[in-house]
């Protein structure tokens, strides 16, 4: 967990982001009116289940979505709307200022280039650093992540396990000291203990460089351990945002509460029903069919309500509200 309290200025502001895809089956509304703020030095977790739209949000910020996507809204970084930038500008920002770490590390690495070279390449190509200097930095970075030694640097990705490749990916993304790191399911495919180690290392590097981390995961416990604030997504919408620890202790939105009850620690209590179709979503609150506290008014879509006094703002001691999308508040 981050301990930086100094500067809590927002570094990335997402305003009313909506993404939909054209498919043979119709228009899939992957994300609707997603708004959140990422502060400097903080770790924000986007949490939700498969299909809730969290990966789509991350990819859309970086303009990495396929051609049949329609994006609306704004993603403001350093005073500019990322969604309005052209490809040349975007490619300058990608990697050096905003880095994204994807799910399948073994697929993202070039199989015929040595690991050390791949990490150093980032510095050489993007920052024009000298080869020797780049290799040294790569070596330092990799040792910090537990891959020590010259021998490891000279190995190829296929000789590494999934976990090691994941660490190489992390090193490659963080070596340029980006200001924002977006990590998409970084612990997928890793065993429990290894996942904890890798995430701890990521958090350490992030704290050192003062970067912000946008973590996308379906693992609630990981989100709680690593992140300062958490945004819970359901069916393409954010239903609750607030401090992670506080959400865990007192979830406000019925979906968040039900989701937490599904955790092994709380006895695997299931949520009845299944998530609605993303092509023809219900008008009004999307969780209504499964909500134990639903009522008449839920047939209209609720807006984000701020509940006072439930959270403290990141980086300061003033109390700000928790935001919930529910008529109960």
């Amino acid at each position, binding site marked *: 967990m981050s301990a930086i309290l100094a500067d809590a200025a927002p570094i990335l502001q997402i305003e009313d982001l909506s993404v939909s895809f054209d498919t043979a*089956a119709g228009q899939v509304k992957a994300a609707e009116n997603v708004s959140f703020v990422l502060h400097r030095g903080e770790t924000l977790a986007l949490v939700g*289940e*498969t*299909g809730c739209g969290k990966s789509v949000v991350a990819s859309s910020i970086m303009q990495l979505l396929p051609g049949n996507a329609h994006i609306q809204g704004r993603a403001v970084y350093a005073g500019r709307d990322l969604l309005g930038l052209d490809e040349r500008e975007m490619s300058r920002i990608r990697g050096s200022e905003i880095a994204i770490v994807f799910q399948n590390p073994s697929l993202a690495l070039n199989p015929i280039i040595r690991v050390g070279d791949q990490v150093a390449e980032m510095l050489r190509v993007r920052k024009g650093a000298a080869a020797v200097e780049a290799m040294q930095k790569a070596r330092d970075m990799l040792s910090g992540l537990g891959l020590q030694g010259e021998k490891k640097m000279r190995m190829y990705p296929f000789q590494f396990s999934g976990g090691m490749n994941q660490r190489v990916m992390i090193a490659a993304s963080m070596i340029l000291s980006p200001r924002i790191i977006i990590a998409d399911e970084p612990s997928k495919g890793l*065993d429990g203990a290894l996942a904890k180690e890798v995430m701890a290392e990521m958090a350490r590097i992030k704290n050192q460089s003062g970067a912000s981390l946008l973590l996308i995961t*379906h693992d*609630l416990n990981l989100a709680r351990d690593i992140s300062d604030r958490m945004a819970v997504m359901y069916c393409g919408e954010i239903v609750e945002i607030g401090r992670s620890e506080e959400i865990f202790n007192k979830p406000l939105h019925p979906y968040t509460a*039900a*989701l937490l*009850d*599904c*955790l*092994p*620690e709380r*006895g*695997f*209590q*299931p*949520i*009845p*029903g*299944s*998530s*609605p179709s993303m092509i023809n979503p219900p008008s009004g609150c999307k969780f209504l*069919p499964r909500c134990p506290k639903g009522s008449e008014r839920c047939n209209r879509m609720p807006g984000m309500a701020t509940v006072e006094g439930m959270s403290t703002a990141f980086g300061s001691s003033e109390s700000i509200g928790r935001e919930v999308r529910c008529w109960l508040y």
Partner: protein
Amino acid sequence: MLAILKAEDVSLVYESGLIFKKRHEALKGISLQLQPGKTVGLMGPSGSGKTTLGKILAGIERPTSGRIFFAGRELGTMNKSETTAFRKAVQMVFQDPEGSLNPKKSIEQSIAEVLAMLKIPSGRWKDVTGRMLEKVGLSEELLCRYPGQISGGQCQRVALGRVLLLQPQVIILDEPTSALDISVQAQILNLLKELQRDLGLAYLLISHQSNVIRFMAQETIVLEGGMISEQSSTYSHSSPGNKPQNIA
């Protein structure tokens, strides 16, 4: 209670190479028992042979040595009809839910082929399918879809439903929920428990998650390097949760 499926000193050795043979002992001297209405949990790090043991118990793979007993009869000594009965009575549900269904067959076709194999008269198919879907909590809307169009949880339910059509007595569950979301996992686990209660099934639950095993199993076996390193009984929770009512 009499064990319905028993493994005695089962070992599996892989040999490769023509002249310089390399031996790899996947399983060494495994003995366990499955009883009706009870679950045995099988844990261990990846590569410890859990899935292989599951396949051997299901009759899909043959051990190099050791004996498997089903309802008191040893596998090698069974005649044809007993072997057929064994094949039907011991079933397996695999880890990747979408992978267990042929992507080119609609759900209806996947179910129909099982019904055809069981030689159920086609007039009764609609009825039997309807009852099976209800049991696993799926709606009939799903029938015309393809596996790629339904969620992982629904795929897993279809796979489970197909297995139940054979009226098995033992189900080997290989990581049934590890590829599923948290809420779906909770639903499937509760469904499995309910089915066990209603049908008296014996489960061998293979999982790397200890909390899943604790929730479901009365006995836990830990495999390491192909050998049993720990065997203990777990105190099973009775879940305080709701019954999974599935609308869609």
